[in-house]
């Protein structure tokens, strides 16, 4: 079996969160003992609500944040201690907000060239050639390369961010909510572009989103996060057809597909919201879970392996 593109073992990240001026800072566990691997050439979708730790997870995999415990392997090599240039050649990001992910004071072509320049062994003519190639690949003109980000629309900016991510020809791209800030019509353009690039370049994606319909469309495998844990991770089709974790089910139920006449579903989760600074004992989902029974509040559920993935729930045993 080939080396997985991304492998994560026992990853954990804690923060000290200030709770107002007068309270002592509290410890917040954003990602709690997460392990998984992403086979080369596949797309792992990570879904979950705000505060579930999906962005923290992405930042650790990108090497932007040190894990409190555990390790990340990219293409079989440990991320910590890896030379930052070598890392850049392997893995690149596309962020959510194309308005803050591009330096407003640099021209588009300079932004795209940055990863090449940082390699410091690429000649200027080679840089120019590769930048032009990247621009073309994402559907931007050479003329647009001479502009500043503020002169482009949201979708065009996101294309620039993608061009920058691809200029080093990395194997893995971490997409953190790449279409959430865009309008629907533009979102489709970007999703199509990402799909096309993956096919043509054989990329592996870690695709983070809160939009389940989008994830279903792009991901081959989906991990559902809740309060820092992956509570279910399965092949995409199986997960959407037959969700095993009650939280996954609730998430799927709350997707409003544009099908008139179905009304708004009852997701049955009550009005308690998850608080990463105050994780409940036992199963961390139990206070909101419609299927909660006695052991849920008492013991932490074990990870159950299924033929097409895994789930962490007392009911799945």
């Amino acid at each position: 079996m080939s080396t997985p593109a991304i492998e994560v073992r026992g990853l954990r990240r804690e923060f000290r969160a200030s709770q107002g001026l007068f309270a002592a800072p509290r410890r917040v566990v954003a990602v709690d003992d997460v392990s998984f691997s992403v086979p080369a050439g596949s797309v792992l979708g990570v879904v979950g609500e705000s505060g579930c730790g999906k962005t923290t997870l992405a930042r650790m995999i990108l090497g932007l944040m040190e894990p409190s415990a555990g390790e990340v392997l990219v293409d079989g090599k440990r991320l910590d201690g890896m030379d930052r240039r070598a890392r850049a050649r392997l893995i690149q990001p596309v962020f959510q907000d194309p308005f803050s992910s591009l330096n407003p004071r640099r021209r588009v072509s300079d932004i795209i060239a940055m990863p090449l320049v940082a390699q410091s062994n690429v000649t200027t003519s080679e840089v120019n050639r590769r930048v032009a190639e990247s621009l073309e690949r994402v559907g931007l003109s050479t003329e647009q390369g001479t502009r500043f980000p503020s002169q482009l629309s949201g979708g065009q900016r996101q294309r620039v961010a993608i061009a920058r991510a691809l200029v080093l020809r990395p194997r893995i791209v971490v997409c953190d909510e790449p279409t959430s800030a865009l309008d629907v019509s533009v979102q489709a353009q970007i999703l199509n572009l990402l799909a096309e690039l993956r096919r043509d370049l054989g990329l592996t994606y870690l695709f983070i989103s809160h939009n389940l319909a989008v994830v279903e469309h792009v991901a081959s495998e989906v991990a559902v996060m809740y309060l820092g844990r992956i509570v279910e991770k399965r092949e995409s089709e199986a997960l959407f057809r037959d969700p095993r974790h009650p939280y996954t089910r609730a998430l799927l139920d709350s997707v409003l597909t544009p099908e008139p006449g179905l009304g708004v579903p009852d997701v049955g989760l009550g009005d308690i919201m998850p608080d990463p600074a105050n994780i409940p004992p036992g199963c961390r989902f139990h206070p909101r879970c419609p299927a909660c029974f006695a052991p849920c509040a008492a013991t932490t559920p074990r990870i159950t392996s299924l033929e097409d993935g895994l789930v962490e729930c007392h009911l799945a045993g």
Partner: protein
Amino acid sequence: MSALLEIDDLRVTFGGTAAVRGISLTVEKGETHCLVGESGCGKSVTSLAVMGLLAKGGKREAARLSFAGEDIREYDEKRMSRLRGDRMAMIFQEPMTSLNPAYTVGSQMTEVLRRHRGTPRAQAVDRAVELLTRVGITAPGLRLGQFPHQLSGGLRQRVMIAMALMCDPELLIADEPTTALDVTVQAQILRLLAELQKDLGLGILLITHDLGIVARVADRVSVMYAGEVVESAPTAELFRAPRHPYTRGLLSCVPVPGKVKRGDPLGSIPGVVPRIPPGFSGCGFRDRCSFAEAACAGPLPRRDVGPAHEALCILPEGVPA
């Protein structure tokens, strides 16, 4: 009997820039009318114009703007403020910032009743507790004494809804009420709105960019593009047979399980939303439209293309189905 809210040929300009370029729509009592469109299409400005809440510099003109049969075009700020919060209420997109951080939930809720009805404090508090319970908040007494920052986004939006209902309004305008919320909470809030509407007979004007929401809650839909309503129809009709090229394009952009196979490209609309310069005429969509022709730059006909179904397009029958 006249409709609850009637808008005819509403125009809003900021300086020389037209944000809304002559839109018409009606909201009947007990009906949810969805105004859907992408950012910058003028849907929020429309709702603010109806409420008389336009930012400084915004000018409103209309051939007709009536609420419950009364012409409110010439209402001054004082008369409008008597109407707002009492007979017509509004909730907003950002529950995080829409409540005043300096006052408790209770204080902000009761001041509506005290202002419009002069209700004594104790009775106003009772009403607030009743409504908080009604919107599904489990410990209303506790919540009344709390400050907004102590509540989650979903709870704050529930508080906003309860606050809007304090005076039993006839019309509720909801501007992207669930955009800032998580999906599970979004479903809960929309369900709550639907329930309240049935129980209270509210007319709702719901502003959203999300076609999923439109499909699930609207009775009638108006699709906005570049300051105009390009298509208007009953919900089922619109999703079954979209007639305007923009509506058609928009619908094809949304990934729907079972409709588009995973990995297949989604439909998309080429280009970007244009800026509408002053003095612009004709169809705002023509640069992105595959059916565009020379006539698109001239005045557009608003045609009936089906039962209660209108489209603003030169194609006589709309896009062929």
